[in-house]
């Protein structure tokens, strides 16, 4: 499809990989065939089978997965893209791996149920042993830096515990002599994910100092508490993971103590729906490809607003029929102007001519 320098090889090359030689070179068909022997077998994709379901708390669930041979392995603390087919739709989200690398190749992913979150609801309510998921490449720098670290501090809030747990489990195995201070904040004891395992660790691991902050009784970890913590920890390597407010507060405290270089943070984004307006408010729209941002009036189509901002998206019917103006919405909440349906799905295809912004948006435009 893409033009190449020499027309002959370009033509032959695209011919050989082209769908018009199907069934001879039909990778999809081979995939389909291979998948009939074993649903995790694949020529092109990393897939994994659920081999155990562990209920952690009332609204948090861990799936233990056995990936196929295409799995490249990960480093404790990394995240990855997970794809599940739910009611015929492929849904993709980024989740953290809560387990360290293991000899048997299994990984664990722990997910908190979020109302309206397609994949997180499936994870907690419908996932069963035997289900097959697609996996992306593990990625992320929230990992132990090279070298030996005698003293490490970890700080997490809510489901931000997951990458921290992967690192903790790794340290437990690989560096049992290290001293680790772990401060975790959750609403109540019942909401502490991995509580039994953490308490067990605290009993058996001499260098492990576990401090749980139950916000419903002890209050939040406020600026003063974080500041004291920053003083205690000093220049020890510190990991912090949680909602953005929590990270900002911790960064502030560490900066004040002059130790921000020793702080590694991983931010768990909040769903944009929290910021979604009622439909009348103007919203910022970032057009990724064009590299510009514009303001879209609520209730007016993104096509009209993009054109008013000087962009020239492809379009056809301007009434939702022909799909010429289809565009990937990377993030944000939109409304379908035909039926008022509001959607906050990330990475969703939208028709610009019949869609309006309900929150700040990022579009692949």
């Amino acid at each position, binding site marked *: 499809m893409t033009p190449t320098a020499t027309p002959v090889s370009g033509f032959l090359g695209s*011919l050989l990989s082209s769908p018009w030689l199907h*069934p001879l070179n039909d990778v999809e068909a081979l995939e389909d065939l291979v998948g009939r022997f074993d649903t995790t077998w694949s020529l092109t994709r990393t897939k994994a089978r659920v081999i155990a379901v562990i209920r952690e708390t009332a609204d948090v669930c861990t799936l233990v997965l056995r990936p196929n041979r295409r799995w490249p392995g990960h480093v404790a603390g990394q995240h990855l893209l997970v794809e599940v087919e739910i*009611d*015929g*739709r492929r849904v993709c989200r980024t989740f953290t791996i809560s387990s360290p690398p293991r000899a048997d190749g299994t990984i664990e992913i722990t997910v908190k149920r979020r109302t309206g979150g397609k994949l997180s609801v499936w994870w907690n309510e419908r996932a069963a042993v035997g289900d097959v998921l697609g996996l992306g490449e593990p990625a992320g720098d929230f990992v132990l830096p090279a070298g030996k670290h005698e003293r490490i501090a970890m700080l997490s809030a809510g489901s931000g515990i997951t990458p921290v747990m992967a690192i903790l489990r790794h340290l437990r195995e690989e560096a049992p002599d290290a001293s680790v201070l772990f401060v975790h904040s959750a609403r109540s004891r019942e909401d502490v994910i991995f509580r039994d395992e953490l308490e067990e660790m605290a009993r058996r691991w001499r260098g492990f100092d576990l401090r749980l902050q139950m916000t419903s009784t002890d209050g939040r970890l406020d600026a003063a508490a974080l500041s004291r913590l920053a003083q205690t920890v000093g220049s020890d390597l510190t990991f912090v993971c949680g909602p953005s407010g929590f990270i900002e507060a911790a960064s502030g405290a560490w900066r004040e103590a002059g130790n921000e270089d020793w702080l590694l943070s991983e931010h768990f984004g909040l769903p944009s729906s929290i910021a979604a307006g009622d439909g009348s408010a103007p919203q910022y729209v970032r057009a990724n490809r064009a590299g510009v941002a514009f303001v879209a009036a609520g209730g007016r189509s993104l096509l009209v607003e993009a054109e008013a901002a000087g962009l020239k998206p492809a379009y056809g019917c301007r009434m939702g029929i022909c*799909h*010429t103006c*289809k565009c990937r919405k990377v993030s944000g909440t939109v409304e379908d102007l035909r*039926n008022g349906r509001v959607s906050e799905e990330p990475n969703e295809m939208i028709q610009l001519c019949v869609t309006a912004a309900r929150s700040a948006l990022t579009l692949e435009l």
Partner: protein
Amino acid sequence: MTNPTSHLSREQIDEIGRELDEIRSDVLADLGENDSLHIRGVVRVARGAAIAGRTLLMFGFTPASFGLGVAALSTAKILENMEIGHNVLHAQYDWMNDPALDSQTYEWDIVCDASQWRHYHNYEHHTFTNVLGKDRDVGYGIIRVSEDQYWRPKHVIQPISNVLLSLLFQWGVGIHDMDPVRQLAGEGDTEEFRRKWEQFRRKAAKQLFKDYVFFPLLAPWNAPRVFLGNLAANGIRNVWTNVIIFCGHFPDGTRVYTEKEIAGETRGDWYLRQMQGSANIEGGSWFHVMTGHLSHQIEHHLFPDLPARRYPEIAPRVRAICEKYRLPYNTGSFWRQYGSVLANIVRLALPPRAATAARVAPAVHEGAGMA
């Protein structure tokens, strides 16, 4: 022709729009695993038929295996073009997020380039359905299918041009977006024409290479047989798609419109035009799949981006709306619909009588594309 919608008030037309929108919302809310199983199942059947057909043509030696091979390969091509290609390109399965069924990247087994198809079919034909001068699918610029089109001398031979068009239908579809008629008249955008020509040339070269060089050479002992089998399969697919599409828009009772009539159209008006410009064919469930569900052309034109397998289930609701508002709902057996298409093609080959011409001519504006 009397206007079958003139008895409707503005409020009634708006109400029809709302009732049809509700059908659309109901289906959208219900999309799920059955729809994905259906389309993937059809993909498997089409693949299997293609493998069976090509194998029989390459390795068989008897006339019977030739016939079976052609039948299997034509079935594969028809399924791929209609129930899969046409419908996937309409974005009917984009909600699945499956890259193999994505409207923007799918390419189909026909000489027509998918992006050109999306432009003239999804946009031009589905937005301006049956509008003279705007929807170039009305008779494809060579056949007079309605009394509202001007008669020209070339129409005298249209019973023959129709046969040729149906035999070579994929080529007609392939060059349609370039609008060669307009280009020949010196009225087209030359730059645009060149770009589309280049796209078409590449796609056509690949298709020709595949069916008439590559696959025959894969079985040198049977090369002429494979060549002929592929030619026959492409031909059968051409005739079938042409016949089904003509049944959808040109039997008696479907309306054509002028640009003036559609100025200031509301969603309700647009729905009305879609219903009046289309016709259904009755048949069993496999017949519907083999037509890509274009046997439910009315439902398809109302909801071009809903998965086509849903059309039979919503057809009774659409029909009930037509009955409630005393609107025609054009449906009939295959032979009735196609018989009426053929009868029209023969009848309209001749110029209208003077009286009719005087009544029709002033109201009609025919665009350059139709010339």
